């Protein structure tokens, strides 16, 4: 039972001051084993805060990040799953499923986490999953001002991952759940 937090596009301090209070009260250290961050934090203080939540932190560079040494993409293996992270502004058209799956095949991962659109989406494609955790602070994106704060928590257990989606809608936290089972055949995904 490995808990992985996926979030990004906080844009602190440029577009938002802080995470919503309700999110902050839920995110306590000790529960989460890994954090995946798609980028655009944008400053070091946010990096330090995430470090407190969990020492195992994986970040990729977003276009507004002040730290220039984050990588463009990152892959890691947790349990039976291979995860890939990328901010997403490099993938054009932004948020396009086919282009993202090209990136997924390139990185050869089961779960690809990208951001940049500030909208939560979760797609299943050819045995892999593409997740966009949205913006954890609800900052406006390059495309739209209408953004709900959201982030994603994945519970990886063997060949099964349960994705919990946390969204702040009208001041209340709504939690949804998505189940995904990896079939053994997907390790050799067809091109």
């Amino acid at each position: 039972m490995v808990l992985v937090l996926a979030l990004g596009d906080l844009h602190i301090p440029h577009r938002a001051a802080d995470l919503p209070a309700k999110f902050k009260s839920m995110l306590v250290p000790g529960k989460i084993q890994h954090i995946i961050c798609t980028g655009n934090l944008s400053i070091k203080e946010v990096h330090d805060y995430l470090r407190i939540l969990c020492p195992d932190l994986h970040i990729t560079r977003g276009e507004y990040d002040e730290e220039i040494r984050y990588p463009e993409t990152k892959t890691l293996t947790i349990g039976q799953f291979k995860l890939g992270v990328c901010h997403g502004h490099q993938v054009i058209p932004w948020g396009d499923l086919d282009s993202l799956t090209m990136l997924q095949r390139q990185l050869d991962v089961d779960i690809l986490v990208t951001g940049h659109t500030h909208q939560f989406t979760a797609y299943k494609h050819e045995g892999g999953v593409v997740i966009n955790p949205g913006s954890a602070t609800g900052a406006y994106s390059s495309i739209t001002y209408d953004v709900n704060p959201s982030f994603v928590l994945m519970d990886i257990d063997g060949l099964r991952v349960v994705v919990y989606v946390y969204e702040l809608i009208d001041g209340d936290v709504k939690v949804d759940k998505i189940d995904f089972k990896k079939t053994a055949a997907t390790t050799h995904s067809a091109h």
Partner: protein
Amino acid sequence: MLKGKLKLPDKARRVFPDRLGSLVAGFNDDKDEEIGGYDSVFECGEELEIIHSNGFGSGRASDDVGGGDDDCDKVEEKKKMVDSGLEKWARQKPEKDGVGLVSVKEILAADEKRSDLEYELSQKEINLEKLQRIASTGLPNGGGLRATAWKLLLGYLPPSRDLWEKELIENRQKYAKLKEELLLSPTELTKIKTKVSKSDDQGADGDIDGPLRRHEISQDDHPLSLGKASLWHEYFQHTEIAEQIDRDLQRTHPDMKFFSGDSSFSRKHREAMRNVLLLFAKLNPAICYVQGMNEVLAPIYYVFSTDTDEQNAANAEADSFACFVRLLSDSVDHFCQQLDNSSVGILATLSRLAELLKANDEELWRHLEFTSKVEPQFYAFRWITLLLTQEFNFQSIMRIWDSLLSNPFGVQDMLLRVCCAMLLCIKSRLLNGDFVANLKLLQHYPDIGIEHLLQVARDLSPDTSSYRLSL
């Protein structure tokens, strides 16, 4: 006829045959009390005769005593071996540890006891008093006898044999259910729940590409939930305890392959013990888990899982849980900090130990209390709360626990006696020591003969000033 034999050691010591006198000179009690007495050494001639006649006895369903003829041959051989053994013995230096040297005489005595025990345990209605008496002289290692005896003595198994099957199955099922309720991680629980409720949805998601379906869930069902009713919240609250338990288990008996090391064998055992301790902690939030409970569980679990009966060994976890709870129920107040100063707390027990020592050996008591100022808190705390598991090697612990569990007045009573006996056995060293030396000695208790220790414990006069009817 053979029951009388158990009293023989005392008789024999006074009346041992002359020709053996010189040979066993080394074992005399004129050396100071630290040498373990070999009770079985002395009854050479007499004992063999009894076995001889018993070999032809009838009606005893005893596994290791074969047919009458075989037994006769065995005894003849042993007689020859004993004579030559005695020669060798005269030249050997006496061993300090009572359990070390395996002599032929001891083998004979042990066989006797084993068949006695098996007889008792094969009865339809077990006579608990008789069992207690046999057990207090020590139970045989190996085989399932100790496991069964301990289960009976702790009250886990009822005295009437017919009910055993039912009791065991019931208790094991109860344990499995408890485990399911309290120990499963929330992921596993939700897995079970979803398997039950929606299997069609899963199938659909599995095949079609495209946006994944979101299912709404309640506020308590997610890992970050802070609600009191949430399974996840409860789970995380217990991770700290679980971590401490894990740490302690890693340190349990590092010299024994059964508990330590990285083999899957020892990992399985640590996992089982972890479950037992975690379950205990969850069911008793007032005491929770206290460091040291792993040491109390270790002998119980070891004995039960080395049971030669396969069924019992497989269910060692469930059985050890029940017996662990029973064993701790006496001393559970010792672990509760709030009760420290009350009449049932650890300080009260420690003062009872001091009183017992005073009643039996005022000189030593005075020396410890006033001259060297070594108070029971400094050394006996660990003795009492951990039931002496940290003071002796593993074999000795099992022997001592045989006596503890078989005391008709309860474990605590015998425990205090053994602690007092421990003090008496090293009396001369204590009287010569100051605070530092005595404390060092008591905190690293020296190796002494266990049988002798237990004999002293049995012979102590009880402290009647604070006598209370236990049980």
